[in-house]
């Protein structure tokens, strides 16, 4: 369970205090998949960072009794001078996963072949994405975070990613931020709408989409 207790997050931008979240208290169930909706700049990405613990709240607390993933497919943490394999080994060490198992899985899933032993700086963006997605699937989490899902590789590889992700989601929770209500509906049963610092949680994703639609039209 993730317990969010009186969470407030503010930023100073252009000498103005921007409130992203104002005194939000909710509980998130790791058995559910939440679609996170909100207008541009509402703070969806910030909310995901707060949930992950990679950004500190201004006030309030987030208690996590589950293992949180990094944003699915995030490649920014790869060291460009290290090989793909060395980067994978680094993440396996951090998350106490079996290094050999994780490396074998990534080698097989990413289809990078010998390039896995080349520095990441030599990779194309497609290769980097394949590596990032593979390592995201190789390490088990209780709650996956997705900030705007993007297609990786060709249609065959996309299908493989979808299957691996579906397998993971069967055993884990999900919070997915997206502008696409269609994508959100495909992946999520529950929903959240972030609006002017308020977070509304809905058991049915259709209710969340409707509230979001009304806000967009207002």
């Amino acid at each position, binding site marked *: 369970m993730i317990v969010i207790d009186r969470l407030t997050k503010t930023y100073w931008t252009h000498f103005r205090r921007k409130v992203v979240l104002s005194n939000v208290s909710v509980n998130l169930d790791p058995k559910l998949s939440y679609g996170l909706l909100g207008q541009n700049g509402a703070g969806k990405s910030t909310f995901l*960072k707060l949930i992950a613990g990679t950004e500190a709240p201004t006030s309030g607390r987030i208690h996590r009794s589950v*293992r949180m993933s*990094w944003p699915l497919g995030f490649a920014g*943490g790869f060291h460009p001078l290290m090989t793909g394999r060395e980067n994978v080994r680094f993440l396996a060490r951090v998350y106490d996963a079996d290094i050999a198992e994780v490396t074998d899985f990534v080698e097989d899933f990413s289809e990078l072949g010998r390039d896995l032993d080349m520095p990441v700086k030599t990779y194309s963006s497609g290769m980097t994405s394949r590596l990032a997605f593979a390592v995201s699937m190789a390490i088990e989490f209780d709650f996956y975070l997705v900030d705007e899902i993007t297609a990786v590789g060709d249609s065959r590889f996309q299908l493989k990613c979808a299957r*691996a992700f579906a*397998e993971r989601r069967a055993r884990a929770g999900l919070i997915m931020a997206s502008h696409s209500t269609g994508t959100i509906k495909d992946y999520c049963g529950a929903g959240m709408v972030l609006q002017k610092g308020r977070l509304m949680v809905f058991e049915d994703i259709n209710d969340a989409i409707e509230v979001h639609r009304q806000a967009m039209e207002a």
Partner: protein
Amino acid sequence: MTAPDTSNPRPALDGWSTASAMHARVVGAVIMRDLQTRFGTGYLGFLLGLIMPLGHLTIAIVVTTLLGRPAPLGTDGPVFLMTGVLPFILWLYGHRQIMLTLLQNRPLLYFPGVDVFDLFSARMILEITSGTLVVVIVLATLAILGHDLTVGDWPAFLYGLILSWLLGVATGLIFGGLGTMWSATIIAGNIIGPLLWVTSGVLFLPDGLPDKIRDALAYNPLCQIIDGVRVAYFSEYSSSFYNPLILNTSILILLSIGMVLVPMTRRVI
């Protein structure tokens, strides 16, 4: 294709011991990553980095030889220079590496469970290890070359070297922490290196300077450390410049400021 075995879900991060284990793992993993990437790729780069201080010492020896200056203390020029270069190097490498910690590792903070304290802790552990090896390598090289390494007061000598490392940690935390808010601070942090090389007594004794300059340098902790190291090394040297109270107080204050800045960086980055 089969995914890695997930039949045993990982423990949650709610217990103190579990959280500590996570931090220990992260620190260990970041140390390994730093070792591999510090100077180019592979562990060989790290080993090459350990002998770089010998280059600083060689430059200092060449410069003083060319200037035709005798050692202001003792009879062995390279040994006198070592007592200045070694603390300077320990400060400089610690300062630079700690200062650049967040700049070089910021993306790692996107991985849940990785904290700024883990990144700084990893760098500190690596720096104290490499600093110890640097001291051994420099002293061993001088001994092999036939220089007399009779230290007057070993504990005080080692204490001075430890203070150099601590000062590097303190200034690194301050400049690195402020650097997350104002990037110009990192530039300033790089500039103080050559500035302190010239003003910290690596090549001279503060007691030989005019009173006004000497009194101003008394508040330069690195100058105090180097003079303290020489007081410890040369049993015949008595300094009116070395002031342990100013030195210990200034390092304590600088370390406290650095430690306060670290959690503040989390709110900025």
